[in-house]
């Protein structure tokens, strides 16, 4: 009986030791700068990739939406081709895509590794995803409002610019938070091939060097980033949505 409790206690202490460890000064003295750099790298990769992914994905999503058979610029063939490209892009697992396009990545940014090397596959992987998110947001815009704009003599470009995008803004913003968080998760995967960031730290220190406290902290930091992004975007979306008053 005494043995049992002894073992239990030792087991618990062992399990908790990484938790206890991260509250020590030595831990932060040793790993603090590394973690700070990792968090910054993750954020930089996420933000830059999101911006470029939207530069590709937003127009692609708009095109997908307006070229539908019942859209404002119906183009059956173009819609099919775009839909197919987007589906192919979305069905490739990120890690495969990253490896597969390495030569292309080097051509674009001059390196296959590091933050710069990660951004190219991140953008290419996220853009089709974003295109579908945008398409869904635009589909939520009341068809009657679009019809009213057509009745007033609005051109397709004006309908996109003055009806679809402003009316879908709250939904686009929420879609934006989902896209950013997805890209954030991809950056962790990119870490596996030396892209830097929190994912890189989790793998190199937490897994390969068996430092559970590092694994724990990187996970906590990623959770905090995700929560923070979601909270800010949900707040902004509710704030600008004039349907909620």
């Amino acid at each position, binding site marked *: 009986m005494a043995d049992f409790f002894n073992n239990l206690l030792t087991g618990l202490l062992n399990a908790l030791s990484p938790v206890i460890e991260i509250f020590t000064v030595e831990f932060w003295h040793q790993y603090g700068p590394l973690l700070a750099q990792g968090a910054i790298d993750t954020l930089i990769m996420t933000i830059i990739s999101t911006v470029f992914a939207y530069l590709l994905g937003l127009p692609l999503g708009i095109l997908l939406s307006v070229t539908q058979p019942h859209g404002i610029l119906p183009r059956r063939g173009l819609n099919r081709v775009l839909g197919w490209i987007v589906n192919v892009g979305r069905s490739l697992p990120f890690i495969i895509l990253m490896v597969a396009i390495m030569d292309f990545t080097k051509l674009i940014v001059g390196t296959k590794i590091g933050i710069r090397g990660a951004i190219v596959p991140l953008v290419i992987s996220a853009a089709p995803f974003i295109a579908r998110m945008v398409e869904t947001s635009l589909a939520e815009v009341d068809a009657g409002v679009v019809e009213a704009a057509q009745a007033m003599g609005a051109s397709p470009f*004006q309908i996109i610019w003055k009806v679809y995008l402003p009316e879908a*803004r709250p939904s686009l913003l929420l879609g934006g938070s989902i896209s950013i968080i997805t890209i954030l998760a991809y950056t962790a995967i990119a870490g596996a091939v030396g892209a830097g960031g929190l994912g890189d730290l989790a793998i190199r220190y937490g897994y390969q060097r068996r430092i559970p406290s590092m694994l724990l902290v990187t996970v906590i930091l990623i959770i905090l980033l995700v929560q923070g992004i979601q909270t800010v975007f949900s707040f902004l979306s509710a704030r600008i949505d004039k349907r909620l008053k």
Partner: protein
Amino acid sequence: MSMIELEHLTKTFAGGVTALDDVTLSVEAGEIFGIIGLSGAGKSTLVRCINLLEQPTSGVVRVNGAELTGLSQKELRKVRQSIGMIFQGFNLLFQRTALDNVCFPLELAGMSRSEARQKARPFLKLVGLEDKEWAYPVQLSGGQKQRVAIARTLVTDPKVILCDEATSALDPTTTQSILALLKELNETLGVTVVVITHEMTVVEQICDRVAIISDSHIVEQGAVADVFHHPQTPAARQLITPRGAISEKSKIHGPLYRITFDGNTSDQPIVSGMVLASGAPVNIWYADTKDIDGNAHGQMLLELPQNPQQAEKMLAFLKEHHVTYEREEAAYYG
């Protein structure tokens, strides 16, 4: 002068459904023209063919002299700016204030936001919403939203306003006020109004002429009073007196008459007068009357006595009091 001319308009949808079949009609400048029909009759398609939101399969559409069916997309957009349209669902931009909704067509025409606001303000005032400039659609009632939509059509100085079931989502009181506003705008601005509806009361209240659409065809058209007093077709009768007024099991023995009130017999008790004049009772099968500005409007479906002399006395009484009547067949209402 004709403001709108539709010639042999046919619309067949991709699935093979024919929504309009050889529709020809013309709307005079400055009148309020009603197009009435039951759900699925094709009236929504018809109104969308006037501004070519629906491209007719064949036929010609002319608005204010311009043949819309022959225009390029760009030219068509230009013409559409002079054809206003209001909808059952109002179709305001949710993310814009009332004032900025009115600004919208001006911005489409290339005006800056601040210039547009200056021009839009008086129109919001015209529809009685000057204190709602900064309200968003979600903060407005149905009637207020429709007023914003009306102001939005007026701001580009349209020749024509198309109303697609514009009062169908509104309660009776609000419906009255919106119809009154449309009538007023028609009278003060001279704008031609086309009203699509399934409600005879709407036509009765504001229209000068009416066309009845049934199964993709225009089956009857003419002055509202004529169509209302002497409907020629089953479709017209059905719209004027709704189905279900008389059921199949009803036993009707005497002759059935429909009498219509159109404002000249308000303060006289007509039905009681008929009874007293003939000394026999009448049976009221259906009645829908109301008082508009002290005048009676509406109709009744009456079964007169089987005795021809008594019935004759009643009809004489009606004639004497200028009440229009018409013999009916019960089968129309079954």
